[in-house]
């Protein structure tokens, strides 16, 4: 990120903060905390009281934009879409809501669908809508038929509006509990989509509140999503180094995270799995990275406490939980084994989920206690019982242009490709050589002995060993410690390759190794593949003599790797960044 971009980003955040300052007035707090009956009372004072539907309630085409023809007659160019009356509005959403009465998955999906309707039009809304539709079709393939059957039944007119369901102050708890009750795969999908949707709603709601137009509209799942968004937002301010704002948000953050855990959601495990599942595809969203970052932040703060202090804090907190009946002795033991702070929180969520009978008041208190436990780690100083205090390391300002990795670890068996090795040359044939021997089809159809007769054998890239850390994706080959691949991904999706060596792999396999390593980590470069810090004679000559960069072997290796990923370079350039000279392959 350039200094100018960083400055612009800070200015944008400052401007957002200024806008948010207006939300901290006494009036705005009263408005925010207003009960439904208070709101209705205010609405009733309006002598022009209206249903809220612009221009009317029925299908009267009340919003119309028309143009005047040359003869003065009106021609409608746009109008509000006419809606069916409620009694006839039998769609999959209604059927879903009905199913939701006794099916928690359907209930969560119907809440998400309802939430989606309230979102502003845009890609986030479209993505969420598509995701809900796909999940609904997958889980309830007969939903459409159910909806049609219901529309013909006598129950239709007694169907409550979705907006009338689940409108209580503590819906974050019940909605969270329902999410926590789902199978882990479903939890992961819901948390992922809810977080993305929640961030959108959180921002919209803050704006709407400022206008005073909508009050108290966030309920149920919306609250869960907004809690997630508050957690992500806190992290975002920490990352950009806005300590003042982060400090102001710390209490909200603790409460939001406390409420999420009390409802039984294993947030950090879920987000990690979600990030792992979707990798770096286009759906990878910043709020998810922020949640991962906040997890890392909490773990780092926790790790700075001396081990004895960690144990003391952990068991002091757990003894409270035990005394309150939130966790049993077995739960204390399970949580006690957790080392990372996020593991403690996820374990706690699991224990809380098992203890389902809780009053609203006790859940509120519990959320507060967890919030305090977390809040200690976000304080500027950690007080120690024996006196003195620790000042944990500041959340380092980490360059925003770099994605925190959530890549993959373990083994990866490369995709099988028709490769042919010439053992005498330790070289895999290239396309031209394959053509010379009659083409790929012909070689593929040959038996092993026929191939051996012409000095060839089939070849498969060995199993890759994958590793990942906060910022890098890595790959190597089992049994060949000389082969390695090390890269990172920028904010705009460009892949920066820093280290590569094919080690003892045959010649001709470099591009396959790169392509398979990227595939293994589910990383597809966007815009650019950057080959960092090039110190290589052929490239140096190309630069010095103005030769075409695309003709160097290095460029050709990059091009072949991209081709295997279905990508095509548009052009090549050299960039100088600090002491580094980089070869940039731009993508079409």
């Amino acid at each position: 990120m350039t200094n100018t971009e960083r400055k612009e980003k800070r200015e944008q955040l400052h401007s957002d903060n200024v806008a948010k300052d207006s939300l901290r007035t006494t009036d705005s707090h009263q408005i925010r905390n207003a009960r439904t009956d208070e709101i209705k009372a205010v609405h009733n004072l309006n002598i022009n009281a209206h249903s809220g539907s612009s221009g009317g309630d029925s299908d009267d085409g009340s919003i119309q934009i028309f143009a005047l023809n040359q003869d003065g007659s009106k021609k409608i160019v746009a109008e509000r879409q006419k809606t069916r009356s409620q009694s006839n509005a039998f769609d999959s959403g209604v059927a879903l809501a009905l199913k939701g009465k006794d099916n928690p998955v359907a209930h969560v999906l119907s809440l998400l669908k309802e939430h989606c309707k309230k979102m502003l039009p845009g890609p986030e809304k479209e993505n969420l809508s598509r995701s809900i539709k796909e999940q609904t079709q997958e889980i309830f393939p007969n939903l459409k038929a159910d909806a049609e059957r219901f529309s013909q039944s006598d129950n239709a007119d007694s169907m409550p509006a979705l907006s009338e369901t689940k409108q209580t102050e503590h819906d974050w708890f019940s909605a969270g509990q329902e999410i926590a009750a789902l199978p882990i795969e479903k939890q992961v999908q819901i948390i992922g989509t809810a977080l993305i949707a929640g961030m959108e709603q959180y921002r919209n709601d803050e704006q709407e509140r400022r206008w005073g137009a909508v009050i108290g509209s966030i309920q149920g799942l919306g609250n869960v999503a907004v809690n997630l968004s508050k957690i992500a937002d806190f992290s975002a301010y920490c990352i950009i180094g806005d300590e003042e704002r982060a400090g102001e948000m710390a209490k909200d953050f603790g409460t939001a995270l406390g409420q999420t855990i009390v409802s039984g959601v294993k947030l950090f495990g879920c987000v990690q799995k979600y990030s792992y599942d979707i990798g770096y595809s286009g759906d990878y969203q910043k709020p998810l990275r922020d949640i991962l970052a906040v997890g890392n932040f909490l773990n780092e703060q926790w790790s700075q406490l001396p081990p004895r202090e960690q144990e003391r804090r952990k068991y002091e907190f757990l003894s409270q939980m035990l005394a309150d009946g939130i966790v049993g002795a077995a739960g204390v033991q399970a949580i006690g084994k957790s080392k990372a702070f996020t593991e403690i929180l996820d374990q706690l969520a699991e224990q809380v989920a098992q203890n389902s009978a809780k009053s609203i008041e006790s859940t509120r208190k519990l959320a507060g206690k967890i919030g305090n436990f977390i809040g200690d780690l976000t304080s500027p100083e950690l007080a120690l019982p024996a006196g003195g205090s620790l000042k944990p390391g500041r959340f380092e300002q980490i360059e925003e242009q770099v994605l925190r990795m959530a890549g993959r670890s373990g083994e990866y068996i490369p995709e099988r490709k028709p490769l042919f090795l010439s053992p005498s040359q330790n070289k895999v044939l290239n396309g031209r050589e394959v053509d010379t021997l009659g083409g790929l089809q012909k070689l593929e159809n040959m038996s092993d002995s026929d191939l051996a007769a012409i000095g060839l054998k089939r070849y498969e890239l060995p199993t890759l060993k994958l590793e990942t850390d906060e910022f890098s994706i890595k790959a190597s080959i089992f049994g060949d410690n000389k082969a390695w691949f090390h890269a990172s991904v920028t904010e705009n999706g460009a892949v920066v390759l820093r280290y590569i060596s094919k080690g003892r792999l045959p010649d001709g396999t470099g591009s396959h190794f790169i392509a398979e390593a990227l595939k293994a980590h589910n990383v597809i470069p966007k815009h650019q593949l950057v080959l960092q810090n090039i110190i290589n004679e052929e490239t140096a000559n190309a630069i010095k003599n103005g030769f075409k960069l695309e003709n160097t072997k290095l460029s050709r290796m990059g091009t072949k790797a991209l081709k295997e990923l279905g990508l095509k370079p548009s052009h090549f350039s050299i960039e100088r960044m600090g002491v580094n000279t980089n070869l940039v392959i731009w993508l079409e």
Partner: protein
Amino acid sequence: MNKNDLFIERDLKLIESLVYDPSLKPRFNALSSFLMWEDELPINITPNGIDTLSALCVARAFLFHGLKLPDHINAASFKQIWDNATDEGIRWPGFNRLNLSDEDSAFYNEMLALGDKHFE
């Protein structure tokens, strides 16, 4: 220039927690023509931190291991980073590998001789 000008505090802590292991064998980075050992690159280091460590590897390669830098590379900039890091006493295991063993030297020369064949 002090330590924090080269590395942010977080990265410096990671680097200085590395433990030198003389039994390790080097890897060759074909992009930048230097050797690097596994105990020289901490996990979770930021990309900026990796780039500075890479610059130290480049400097070590041409100052001690015999790498000839192409014309387009500004050797003085790399040397400056090396000098700053050593002056500040950064505890990086890579400073223990100024002289290559015969085996490592043979491996490095073999890799350098391959030149662009690395990219085939």
